[in-house]
């Protein structure tokens, strides 16, 4: 199989939590990948600008909050709609083996990339075995 048809995943609203901001919040789709050195996270957040995106790690919880600007929708009348427009929010519990000072986040083409480097003690280490 060389090509694969993409299906739309309908946006899910954030549920089961108190909101700190009014308005709708959607759960962004994420991929989380682990390499020997780091954890990587990508989140689809179309419409969120760098300055309205907040990535925070506090008490072992990584939180991502993105605000969508509605300025471009001024003077436009919806005619046909398939996706909702709103902010994005999601929380993850992160193990304590992450080096919090080294976390890097980048936003490109509506996708947030977060690199969470593992603390030195959590990285796999090869132990040399010496002959007797």
């Amino acid at each position: 199989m060389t090509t694969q048809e993409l299906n739309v995943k309908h946006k899910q609203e954030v549920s089961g939590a108190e909101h700190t901001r009014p308005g709708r919040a959607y759960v962004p789709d994420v991929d989380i990948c682990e390499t020997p050195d780091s954890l990587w996270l990508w989140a689809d957040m179309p419409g969120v600008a760098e300055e309205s995106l907040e990535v925070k790690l506090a008490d072992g919880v990584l939180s991502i909050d993105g605000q969508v600007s509605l300025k471009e929708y001024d003077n436009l009348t919806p005619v046909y709609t398939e996706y909702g427009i709103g902010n994005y929010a999601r929380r993850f519990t992160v193990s304590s083996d992450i080096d919090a000072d080294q976390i890097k986040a980048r936003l490109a083409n509506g996708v947030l990339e977060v690199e969470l480097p593992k603390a030195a003690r959590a990285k796999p280490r090869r132990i040399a075995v010496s002959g007797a």
Partner: protein
Amino acid sequence: MTLYRFSQTRDPVSGLLELQRELDRVFERSPDFGFGVSGRGVFPPVNIFGDKDGYVVRVEIPGVAPDQVTIETQGRTLTIAGKRDVSPPSGGGFHRRERGSGEFSRSLQLADDLDPSRAEASYQLGILTIRIPKSEEAKPRQIAVKAA
């Protein structure tokens, strides 16, 4: 065609709620627009808005670089095609995989009063915006009344 108008409020929060309500209301209506859209549920999702100059099609394609998208018009058909590539760093294992990847293609039928030859597209923050103006003949025109 019934037209819904956003409120003119400057408060972003109530503006947001208002917008969402309008969207929901439109969502439940049966589609009877000058726009032939088929394939609800096919990637990428589209929203279509109208203003006095024409239509604005907004497509959410996060993670697709602008050079990976092609937009084509043929007669009254507008086709948006491209590829979304989500490649992980090598040597990694996934804990969670929710973002789809692959090729996509979607066509919209344009209404007769639009002029696809003057359509313009831009891409920002993962959202593709295509503006299709109305043809000159379809634009409202004011006719001056001469005094007799």
